Every structure is written in structure tokens, then in C-alpha cells.
């Protein structure tokens, strides 16, 4: 076949290449999700037969697992808790990490280097040890067994990372822009808010969304600090009530994961759109 001449042929070839490249990723990422979706609607005996096809229904699909999820467990509360906690943590992270990142990146503060490194070092302390002294803090503040304990504690692992992330972003903002703003009469704060931040929106969004996601992942702190059924976040509630001894309620487990993960994925999609739009086409042409 002759080399593609027309622009149209070029386009088609490019499309095909991209789809071909994406297919393995889609398969890897999506295949387990697809299986989870099917399982969430399967009847339990359907799962336990070796002859059955895992990818489709061998017995009629059912809503029973979701019934169990919503009527026999506290799932509704868990979702609300998880989302609320994640939102609060995202806000706290935003308010602490963004200014801190800017200060460390731009303001040439003495000792900033060491403070920055110290903040990073907190990740070296494993959560499996940290949760013990933190239990004491939580109890002293009267937050034991309330999801507010998690709002207090989760920023300990979102803030360091987001601070560094913002630092990385702010470093890429040209100094000239800030200097120009200051020459124009903005103070330090003005330059930051009116010039630097708008340009760094992708970075801020990234930080927010990471903070949000990281807060949805934790299991150990949730387990240690929150025990009442209606205060738990999803990662703690689900194993508590859907794994009983050595009996797993697979259908409901899958349903639980999907109902909390899919909305967040949609959120991601929305954000990704925003900052991919800002990316120069020049990078990849």
C-alpha cells in the first residue's frame, strides 16, 4: 500500500494507531471492572460453579446484592461519610498545601529547603505505628468514634505530597510573570493570587483530586478511630459487614466498590479534561 498521501488517510492511520495503543490499557484497566459489574448483579450460587462463564449471567441477574447493601448494611451512611470526609480533607489540603508550596518554591526563605525535606520525611513513618499515638490525640480531642477524627488525621498524608506537588508546579511559573505583576503594584499576596494561581489551576486541581482520592483509600486509621456502624467510611464498613468470618458476600462487595468508585472516576474525567485542554499540542506533534 502506498504511503498515505491525503490528510484524511493520515488521520485515519493516526486514529488506528492510538486505538491500538490504548487497547491493552483498556483491557488491563477495564476488564476487572467489567467483571466486578457483572458479579454485582449475579446470584450467589452462580459464582460457585466452575462450569459457569464468569463474564455473563448463567442464572438470572438480580438486584439482591444491592438490596443487601442498602437495606441490611449501613452502606448509605458509609458513602455519605466517605464523600464528606474526602471533601473536607481536600479543602484542608488546599488551604495548607497550596500556600506552603508557593512559599517553598518562590520565596527564598531561609531554612525552606530543610523544612521542605522534613515535611517529605513524614512519609517514612509507617501508618502502622503512627496510628497508636494518633489514637491518643484523637481521644483527647474527643473525636474518637466520629468520622471527624479522620478529617483531622487524613491531611497528614495528603498535605506533604500536595505541598511538594504544588512546589513543582509553582517552579514552572516564569519569574517574569510575577515580577511584572509586582512592578504593576500588586503586593506579594496580590501577585500570588492574581497572577500565579490562575496559571497553576491544573496543578491545584491535581492536588485537590489526589487529596480526595487518597482520603478514600485509607483502611487502618478508619479502623482504629471509628467503630460505630454509621460513622465508618466505605473502606472500613465494607469489610466489616460484608466479610463475616470466612464468608464473603461477593456480589455486595463488588456493588459497594463500584458505587463509590464510579462517581469519582467521572469527577476525574472532568478534571482531566480541564488540564489536558491546557496542554500544548506541541508536546506530542
Amino acid at each position: 500500500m502506498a504511503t498515505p498521501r491525503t490528510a484524511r488517510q493520515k488521520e485515519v492511520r493516526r486514529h488506528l494507531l492510538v486505538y491500538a495503543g490504548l487497547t491493552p490499557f483498556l483491557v488491563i484497566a477495564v476488564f476487572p471492572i467489567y467483571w466486578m459489574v457483572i458479579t454485582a448483579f449475579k446470584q450467589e450460587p452462580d459464582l460457585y460453579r466452575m462450569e459457569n462463564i464468569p463474564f455473563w449471567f448463567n442464572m438470572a441477574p438480580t438486584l439482591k446484592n444491592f438490596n443487601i447493601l442498602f437495606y441490611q448494611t449501613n452502606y448509605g451512611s458509609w458513602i455519605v461519610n466517605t464523600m464528606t470526609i474526602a471533601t473536607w480533607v481536600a479543602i484542608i489540603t488546599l488551604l495548607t498545601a497550596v500556600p506552603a508550596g508557593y512559599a517553598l518554591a518562590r520565596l527564598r526563605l531561609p531554612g525552606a529547603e530543610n523544612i521542605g525535606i522534613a515535611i517529605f520525611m513524614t512519609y517514612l513513618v509507617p501508618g502502622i505505628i503512627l496510628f497508636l499515638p494518633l489514637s491518643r490525640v484523637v481521644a483527647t480531642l474527643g473525636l474518637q468514634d466520629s468520622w471527624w477524627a479522620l478529617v483531622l488525621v487524613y491531611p497528614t498524608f495528603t498535605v506533604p505530597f500536595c505541598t511538594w506537588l504544588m512546589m513543582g508546579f509553582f517552579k514552572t511559573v516564569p519569574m517574569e510573570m510575577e515580577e511584572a505583576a509586582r512592578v504593576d503594584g500588586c503586593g506579594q499576596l496580590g501577585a500570588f493570587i492574581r497572577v500565579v494561581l490562575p496559571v497553576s489551576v491544573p496543578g491545584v486541581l491535581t492536588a485537590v483530586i489526589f487529596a480526595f482520592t487518597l482520603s478514600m483509600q485509607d483502611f487502618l486509621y478508619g479502623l482504629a478511630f471509628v467503630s460505630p456502624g454509621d460513622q465508618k467510611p466505605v473502606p472500613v464498613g465494607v469489610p466489616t459487614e460484608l466479610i463475616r468470618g470466612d464468608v464473603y458476600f461477593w456480589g455486595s462487595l463488588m456493588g459497594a466498590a463500584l458505587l463509590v468508585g464510579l462517581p469519582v472516576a467521572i469527577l476525574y474525567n472532568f478534571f482531566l479534561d480541564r488540564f489536558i485542554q491546557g496542554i500544548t499540542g506541541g508536546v506530542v506533534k
Partner: protein
Amino acid sequence: MWWQSHSAQRKTFGYTLLAPAALYVLLLVGAPFLFSLWLAVSDANVGDPVAHFVGLENFRAAWEMDTFWIAFRNSVVFLVVAAIFKGLLGTSLAFLLLQNFRGKKLIRGLVVIPFTLPIAISVLSWKWMYDSQFSVINWVLSRAGLIGSYGSESWPVWLGQPHLALAACIAVNVWRTFPFSAIVLLAGFTAIPLEVLDAAKVDGCTFFQRFRHIVTPMIFPILMIGFLFDTVFTLSDLSVVYLLTQGGPANASKILPVLAYQIGIQAGNLGRGAAIALFLVPLLLPALILVLRNIKRREW
């Protein structure tokens, strides 16, 4: 007035901005960090209010356990292999996501899902997918003729065969986090100003030249940060292995955080658990400080 000088103003402003984050972290993590250092050199048990200083005894005890060295080796292997795959897959995915094509919104959304599902539950799904009897993966491979049928020698028992067990855990970790790597990369790409690239194009640089000389240095800080954090997260993450194999079979997939948890919390010997958990710190610390200093020094 000296305190009205530009420099003093800048510093005050700076420290004010930095204060919330620094205080938060130092209070809630700094003090517990010192506490865990104390634990590592004491004979603390979970239920005992009183603990005594024992020097490096806990570390010595860890050295003597051959399980410890197995866990150490597994942790390193896990980290390196996972990092390689995440780097490769993340980069490829980032490039692909940048492309303009039909259906890109949907596909972007789908590809990100592994990262958004709570670990505790998504890992459980993998547990079933790796199941010795009902594994979906085996079902597909077996129907495709690539492996034997159930019960035969070539039916992989993902979580039961020593080499496969660790690989299976690594695979789940990679599956979960490569979207994260891709996003960090994408975020990095956004930082590159259009003008610089256009100027380079006008000057006649090829794609690869542009990538090497312009793009890479500019995204380097963000890349490094992503890589470092991923390293630290991976080394201290116990959920994947804990939920899939508990470190089995016979310690084939045991990694340091799991061992630390089993000894420190489940068996109650806090001192030794802390020593094991903190073991990697003196090794990582110098490396991390070097890299971080390096990042900070890069100016345009």
C-alpha cells in the same frame, strides 16, 4: 524601617503561608515520629504502659530472623519491578491520553477507575480473580489453550506458587497506580509553555530533540516528585499483600510492612514491629535528601 524592608516582608509573608502546613505536619506527625523512634529502641508491648530502653536490641533481633531478610528482599524487588512497569505504562498512557480522538472522554474516564476504587475492595476483587478454583484469568487462558485445565500441572495457582505470589501482588499494585503515574506526567506536561515549544519547532527541532532538551528538563521536578512519593507509598503499603496473601505462601510474598504489622500489632511486640517498619528509613533518608535537594536547586 528594617521590618518594612522588602526582604523582611517577603519572609514574613512566606512563613505565614508555610505555617499551617508545617504546623499541621509537625504536630500530628512529628511527635508521633519521635514516638515511633522511641518504640524502636524500647521493649514496648501493646498492652504495657511501661517500656524500657533496650538500645539496638530490636534491630539485632530483626537481623537474626531469616524471615526479615526475605521480607527485605521482597520489598526491594517489589519496589523496583513495580516502578519499572509503572514508569513504562504510565508514560505510554500519558502520551496516548494527550491525543485527540473520538471517544477520548469515555476512555479517559475508564482508564482512571482502578485508581479511584478504594484499595480494600479492589484488592479483594483481585483475590477472587486469582482464586485457585474460580480465577477468571485462568478461565480465559485455559479456554484459549494457553494453559491446562483445572487440576493440571499448568494451571497457575497465582497466590499459591512462590514466584507467582509476589508477581501477582506487584501486578495489582501496578494496575492500581499506573493511572496515577500517567496523571502526574500529564500534569507535568501542562507546565510547559507553548511559546518555548513553538520557538523550538520554528528553529527546526525534531520531536525527539524537543522532548529531550525541552520537555524532559521541564517536567523533571514533577516526575521526580511523583516517582519519590510513589516509592515511599509502595514501600510502606501493606494493603495489597496483606489482603491477597498475608505474606504467604511460606513468606514468598512477605514484605516489610506486613511483617512489621504482624509482629508489632497482631503479636503485640511493638518495639520489634517499629524497628522492622523503620528499618528502611536510614537507607532511604540519604538518597531522598540528595534527590530532593537536587530538585530544589533547579531553576530556569
